[in-house]
């Protein structure tokens, strides 16, 4: 009499791993044929069949023996196939030439600066000359955050003026 899948699973869960041979013998050829319909290379098919059974073995402790084995195995096959396709997805190499458009900042016009206060003007000019915020803060003996907010305010004013 043939041992049922349920009995085999129970035996494997009890540590009698030789019973796994029955499952392999029972399902390996149908799984092989199923994968063979989708993949042509023999080595890949064999790898996938092996991975399927190994994954099943790893999950066997959590597997409910009341449920049928076949659908579960085919679900693993589907996942393995998905992973296989993902691994061998054709990749388009990126072109190495990347065009970088350099946008040069327009120099500040004196007419633009009319809207700014004296302090804002001086700080903004120093920023344009390449001074860092810390250096400007030291020069004007003002806290760094104050300098930052003066610069931000001045830029907003200039932006509004340009939009007009």
């Amino acid at each position: 009499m043939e041992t049922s899948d349920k009995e085999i699973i129970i035996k494997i869960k009890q540590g009698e791993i030789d019973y796994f041979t029955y499952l392999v013998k029972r399902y390996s050829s149908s799984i092989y044929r199923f994968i063979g319909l989708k993949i042509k290379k023999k080595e890949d098919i064999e790898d996938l069949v092996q991975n399927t059974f190994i994954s099943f073995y790893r999950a066997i402790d959590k597997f409910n023996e009341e449920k049928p084995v076949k659908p579960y195995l085919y679900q693993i096959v589907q996942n393995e196939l998905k992973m296989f396709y993902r691994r061998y997805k054709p990749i388009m190499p990126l072109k190495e030439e990347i065009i970088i458009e350099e946008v040069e900042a327009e120099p500040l016009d004196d007419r633009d600066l009319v809207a700014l206060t004296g302090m804002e003007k001086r700080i903004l000019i120093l920023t344009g000359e390449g001074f860092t915020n810390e250096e400007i803060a030291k020069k004007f003996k003002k806290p760094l955050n104050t300098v930052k907010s003066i610069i931000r305010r001045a830029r907003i004013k200039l932006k509004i003026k340009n939009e007009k």
Partner: protein
Amino acid sequence: MKSNKKLEKKIIDKVYRLEAKKTAGYVLLRLFLGLFFILFVFFLSSALIDILNEQNSFDLLDFYRDDLEVIKRYFISNISDFYRELPQPLTFILLASILVVLVLTGFLIKNFNKIKNRLISLYKFYINKTK
């Protein structure tokens, strides 16, 4: 057909290799932890007994040799005195270690058949392979 047999053999080989690694890891880890905690309990209890001997704390338990009336009268007070004389941190560490040893032993008893069957299966497989 022949290639299918080969594939089955490959799968079974892989499963056994995986299981051998898993079982070896499990058994070795449990053995190491068990031995470590048993030794730890042994050293801690001998240290605790030494301390109690130095303090003459065991004298508090001598009343057990007396008759039942005396035992009844002094039982609670003597036991509470003895408890107070115990070095608390050491005692708690000892109790925790004993608990770990008991839990490990419980796991071992619970999984004993499973581990035994696995080891037998692995043994049979590798014996057949070497033949």
